[in-house]
Every structure is written in structure tokens, then in C-alpha cells.
């Protein structure tokens, strides 16, 4: 079954565009010339305080989310916002932050330069958002990794014309792609190029391909918040009526005495992390929860 094309245009270098993508629609980001990185922001269209979270997504899907993975919103919402229905290049990144004006001034000496922070901010302004609302990006067509010393790196990319990523919206979102402004680094192979943006109506087959996710009580909504009103002024002032209500505070400690036979003592002596703990109780606690992670976590 053919997908109905709802919108189709070329996103020009130096620009971005805020797009309303409704639940059940697919946003396609496609290479025209190849070799162009795009940054991407995503907000709940009906509550902009719920937005895509690179950290949550990175934790669940790794540094390079691809087909079959989800774009998750930030805690305390932690809902799947979009589903990656297609990814022909396999070069997405959720490790690097967006480039910014300061990067180009501090490293390259530019007074002004195209950069993803400012492009995103200008695109989001169409919906009343401020530069502070730009969040960590989902980076498409961006070849990254981590070297042996643990430092992240960006290298040249190999995406070709027609390569695309399809995001299927699982809620109504404001989706904001932008052409990455980096032309003096390897990200887009040292040039800026347009990209094709399409919104398509998902077919029944597209929708059926999305895995069913469990719904958790801890995927909170505004109704769960003690503070539900969004601040409208910039000054921070203490609420004199505030009374702290932290969960499970105070933390109370109980001791459990564990009799170990000779065999068990020997096991503890071999396993205990003496480099970390100077008492057997702490070492045994580490073993207890390490075991739990290994054998009970997935059950």
C-alpha cells in the first residue's frame, strides 16, 4: 500500500523547519546530494515540556539508534515519541551535542557562523519557543564513535543520495530538523547541502510494525506533578510555603546478619572488591546486587 505524501520540500543549508507531525504520520529525512548531517529536535505538540531526550535514548539503544529503535522523551515522562521505521544509512548519533555559535568563535574565530543551536532556535521561534528550549539533538547522518581513550570523535560520512531515515510519530509532535551548520569540520564532509523533507501518512503495515510497549506508572504526566504551573518569569524566587516531600526520604538503614560457612567465606574472600570496600558487609552487598542484576533484572 502506497503512503500518501502530505508534505514534500527541500530544506536549504543554513535553515531548519518546525513541522507538525501527527500520530500515525511518518517524517522522512532524506539525502539529496549525500553526505549531509541533520540535527533534530522533537516536542510533544500539546505540551512542549515533554521533549526528546538523547540520554534516555542513548541508554536504551546505544550511541547509534537505528531502525526498530525509539526516540524517548526526557524523565519524568519517558515515553516513546517516535519510532525509527527505516534507516538506510545507519549513521545516527546521540552522543554529540549540537554545534553552537560559541564553538565556532572559540575554536575557529568566527563572529557569525551557521550552527545547529541558532538554526534550531530560529526554527522553533515559529512556535513561540526560546533559544533555551533547544534540547540535545538526535543527529542523523553523522558518523561518530569513541576512541580507545574514551574520547568521542566525529569522522567523515558516506551517506548517498536517497539515503533516508523515517520517524513514525507515536504522539502528535513538533518535529524540527535542521541542516547541520558544520562546514569546517568532517561532519558533513566539509560542505553544506540541502536535504529532502517529507511527511507521509503511515500505512496499516507501518503501524503494525511498531512493537507494543508496556505502559508504566512511572511514565508521569503533568497530573502527577506537585508543581504543575510553568514559570512565566525568569527570576527565581523561593516559595515560602514550600515543604519538601522527597520520595522515600529519609533513607533508613537496617542491618542483616549473614552467617557464612567456610565455603562461603572462601567465595567471599575471592570475590570481594577489596579495592573498593574495607569491610566484608559492603563487599557482600555489592555481590548481592551484582547477582540480582545478572539473574533477576530481566525477569
Amino acid at each position, binding site marked *: 500500500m502506497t503512503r500518501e505524501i502530505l508534505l514534500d520540500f527541500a530544506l536549504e543549508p543554513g535553515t531548519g523547519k518546525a513541522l507538525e507531525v501527527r500520530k500515525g504520520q511518518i517524517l522522512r529525512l532524506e539525502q539529496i546530494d549525500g553526505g549531509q548531517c541533520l540535527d533534530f529536535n522533537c516536542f510533544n505538540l500539546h505540551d512542549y515540556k515533554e521533549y526528546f531526550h538523547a540520554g534516555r535514548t542513548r541508554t536504551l539503544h546505544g550511541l547509534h539508534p537505528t531502525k526498530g529503535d525509539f526516540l524517548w522523551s526526557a524523565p519524568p515522562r519517558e515515553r516513546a515519541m517516535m519510532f525509527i521505521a527505516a534507516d538506510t544509512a545507519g549513521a545516527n548519533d546521540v552522543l554529540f551535542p549540537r554545534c553552537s555559535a560559541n564553538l565556532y568563535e572559540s575554536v575557529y574565530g568566527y563572529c557569525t557562523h551557521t550552527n545547529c543551536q541558532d538554526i534550531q532556535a530560529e526554527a522553533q521561534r515559529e512556535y513561540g519557543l526560546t533559544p533555551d528550549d533547544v534540547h540535545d539533538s538526535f543527529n542523523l547522518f553523522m558518523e561518530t564513535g569513541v576512541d580507545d581513550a574514551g574520547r568521542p570523535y566525529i569522522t567523515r560520512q558516506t551517506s548517498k543520495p536517497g539515503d533516508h531515515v523515517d520517524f513514525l510519530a507515536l504522539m502528535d509532535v513538533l518535529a524540527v530538523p535542521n541542516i547541520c551548520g558544520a562546514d569546517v569540520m568532517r561532519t558533513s564532509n566539509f560542505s553544506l547541502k540541502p536535504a529532502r523533507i517529507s511527511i507521509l501518512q503511515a500505512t496499516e503495515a507501518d503501524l503494525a510494525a511498531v512493537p507494543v510497549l508496556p505502559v508504566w506508572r512511572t511514565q508521569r504526566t503533568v497530573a502527577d506533578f506537585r508543581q504543575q504551573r510553568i514559570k512565566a518569569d525568569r527570576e527565581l524566587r523561593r516559595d515560602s510555603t514550600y515543604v519538601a516531600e522527597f520520595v522515600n526520604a529519609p533513607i533508613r538503614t537496617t542491618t542483616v546478619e549473614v552467617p*557464612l560457612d567456610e565455603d562461603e567465606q572462601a*567465595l567471599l574472600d*575471592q*570475590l570481594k572488591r577489596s579495592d573498593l570496600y574495607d569491610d566484608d558487609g559492603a563487599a*557482600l552487598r555489592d555481590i*548481592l546486587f551484582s*547477582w540480582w542484576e*545478572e539473574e533477576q533484572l530481566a525477569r
Partner: protein
Amino acid sequence: MATRIVTIALNQQQLELVDRTLAKGLAEDRAALIRHALRRYAARHLPEQGAATRPSLAVG
């Protein structure tokens, strides 16, 4: 058989997890569950150990 008492400090959240795990029937009480965890963990991480390290659900 000589025994050594090891005292573990657990907060209420850690105890909740221990007690929920206990409810699965893995052991009779908290101490037994912790010993079970020790043996199971050793079986995974000290494979060269002999029968003494073989995992056993019959702890208590």
C-alpha cells in the same frame, strides 16, 4: 563447621528489593537469599571453583 557473621547494611529500598525477590521463593529469609546470591555469583565468576561453588537453590 565454622561460621563467620557478616553484617550487611541495607536501606529500606534495598530491603524492598530483597523481600520482593524472597517472595519468589528463592530462599527462606534475607540471610539465606544473600548466601544464595553469593553462591550463584561465584558460580558465574569463579568457574574454576569445585563443587563447593556449585549453585544451589537449597540454601537456608
